[in-house]
């Protein structure tokens, strides 16, 4: 086992090469997952922002109607 870890005295080179390779690929996977989630929530927020805008618009119409009725 120690033999395997030492890689004939070249452990630093071998493990840095393999570590960087699979470390970077792992980071890419995690980054893709999190960006998928943020994309979904961003679009969900956009959709939510867009839908209620019609209701306040209707409400604003009533408000202005009430305001014009007051005087």
């Amino acid at each position: 086992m120690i033999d395997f870890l030492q890689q004939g005295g070249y452990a630093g080179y071998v493990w840095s090469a393999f570590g960087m390779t699979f470390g970077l690929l792992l980071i890419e996977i995690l980054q893709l997952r999190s960006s998928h989630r943020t994309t979904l929530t961003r679009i969900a927020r956009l959709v939510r922002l867009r839908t209620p805008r019609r209701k306040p618009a209707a409400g604003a119409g009533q408000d202005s109607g009430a305001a014009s009725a007051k005087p």
Partner: protein
Amino acid sequence: MTINWFKFASPAAFYPIAGRLIPWFGGIAAVLVLIALYWGFFETADRLGGSNPQKEYYRIIFVHVPAAWMSMWLYLVLAGWSAVGLVFNTRLSFMMAKAVAPTGAIFTFLALWTGALWGRPSWGTYWDWDPRLTSELLLFFLYIGYIALHSAIDDMRRADRAAALLAIVGLVMVPVIYLSINCPDPNQCAALHQRSDPGSIHPSILIPMLTMTLGLWSYSFAAVFARLRNIILSRESDNAWVRDVVAKEAV
């Protein structure tokens, strides 16, 4: 029977297909990479009692060569989809090209990184202006340039076209890397990469190297499709089908 391939060229049609393919490519990639790692560390000729004049750092070959091959192959894919996009003006082609670039840049960086860690013990230096090292470094800058140029232009369609042109012009680098051995005899000049043919590599080294290449290829499919799905969602966010997807996937 004819298949209408343009049906799959619509982002709305490809989004669910890519989603179904990702677990398959990811699973195949994991299996192949694990086989290649096991083989490369435990089943090579020197482990099985045979004689091997190489020192242990040669095992870096099992990630170095596949990463270098993938860096060139993904550039061909990037330039290919860019060309298809420019010729047919299909939205999905440009999205595909954009999705390939970061993964290609990662593999190019890995080829340089693992090469440096191999070069230090074998050649005595992390870096040298060897033709192949230099041209691979330029390929890395091309990937970075593609990503930077694309994100520097606000208008999506203009960004797609400008970056696609850059990708096609940069295509000259791939054959340069492939052919960049100007020195058949290393005793006569300073070239560090030498000509080699796969037939001269021992099967116990060649097989894990090819298995790792297929594994990383499969990984690239999964990663590129995952990124493509994100690009499709954000670019098509005005469409009704995206709203359905978001309602279904976002909890």
